[in-house]
């Protein structure tokens, strides 16, 4: 798990601090299928159901993170 997080941070940092992707390159990113939080109510319902069955909860971060699209 630590390795996955580390890889994630490195990959994320590589895209940080510059215009990794220009606005005119975001055609696919703007599609709803590229936005994991598009259906926020479904996500909230899922968390509600699963956190009442499982010992673990959280990790979903602060709701309403960005999608990177314009």
């Amino acid at each position, binding site marked *: 798990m630590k390795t996955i997080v580390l890889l994630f941070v490195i990959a994320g940092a590589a*895209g940080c601090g510059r*215009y990794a992707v220009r606005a005119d390159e975001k055609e696919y990113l703007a599609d709803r299928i590229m936005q994991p939080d598009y259906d926020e109510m479904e996500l909230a319902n899922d968390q509600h*159901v699963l956190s009442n*069955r499982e*010992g673990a909860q959280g990790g979903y971060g602060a709701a309403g993170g960005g999608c990177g699209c314009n």
Partner: protein
Amino acid sequence: MRRLARILMLLLAAAAVARAEDKVEVKAEYFTEPANKEALHVFHPAVGVNVDAHPNFSLNFGYEADVVTGATARTYGAMDAISSATKFSDTRHAFHGGAELRLGPAAVDAGYTYAFENDYRSHAIDVGAKVDLWGKNTTFRLGYSHNFDSVCDVDNKGAAPTERRSLGSSQGCFKGMVGLIEEPLAIDSYAMSWTQVLSPIIVSDLSATFQVLDGFQSNPYRRVRLFGTVEAQESEPLLRQRVAVQARLRFAIVRARGALGVLGRFYYDTWGIKAGTAELSWEQWLHPQLLLRVRGRYYQQGRALFYRDAGETLSYESVGPVGQYFTGDRELSPFRDYLAGVKLAWVRNADEHGKVLRWFEQMDLNFKLDLIDYQPMTPLPPNQPRDVGLVNALIAELGLALRW
């Protein structure tokens, strides 16, 4: 001062171009664990409305309910785990109101939620802030919430844990009835997320939450059998700290008009539970108006430090509590579960022929079905009769969202 005013003016001018969306959304969800002896049914309707009161200011309101009926064993012990279920029913209502202010690339939001049921009251406030950076390739968000909750319980003040009596019913709760009290529970939740565009077809996010629960966390109705004959109200620690970290990646597969989603989550808390979650999903446009999603999820957790299984040699019945703690909560036992689900959405956008139903920019009608198989990792965990067969739980959801 003048400089500050100028900065504020610039921010407000930039905010005028940023606009949220007006939306109303309705969902009806049904969750069931269809076991013969301990069936559980939850009907969960929800409605949410988001409106722009101003180009840089929006309001949101929501309501949801849980209508719960079912049966469960009130006492956790070797004999009770497979017999004597007691019927119960309750309804929870929750109302939410919030606001968001957008200032250029940044936004702040705040909200309040009030929820109540026969034996539980909750007031919660939440605040958050978000900023889009570097051409919206990077988004950071921070959030905080605090719950002021109360749980109805029998007045057990002064009693030792093994002498505590359980609540018989919710009758008289929050009405000042003699012999009943309201146990406080405070919950502080801190959250952060970082969304990062990695390429024109890959987006990622990393999220973390830290939560502190301070107060009464036991189920007031649940009893545990100790030393063979004693039955006492479940006794769980008053303090619990939880940490969860989640990473997600999403890849657009352009030729297939689809997207692959990958999720990994690690969880740890001070009650000793460690858990991992992995999820794979595939979303596919079958038609310009028809979207399919299939997903598979795997979850596994270890046991709480003070959990003793009724089917093991070192059970509460044979050797008693762990310190002063004992529980009959299945969520604290070790288990794994598998989820397989499918979702179909019919999406209709306004086009050259006009708006959808004359008013809306988009209509989204969707249905989903999730099946869950639960696999205990000890011989006789709580609610064991619910774990028979291949499908132990089912989630069906019908939703409609209208945007204008």
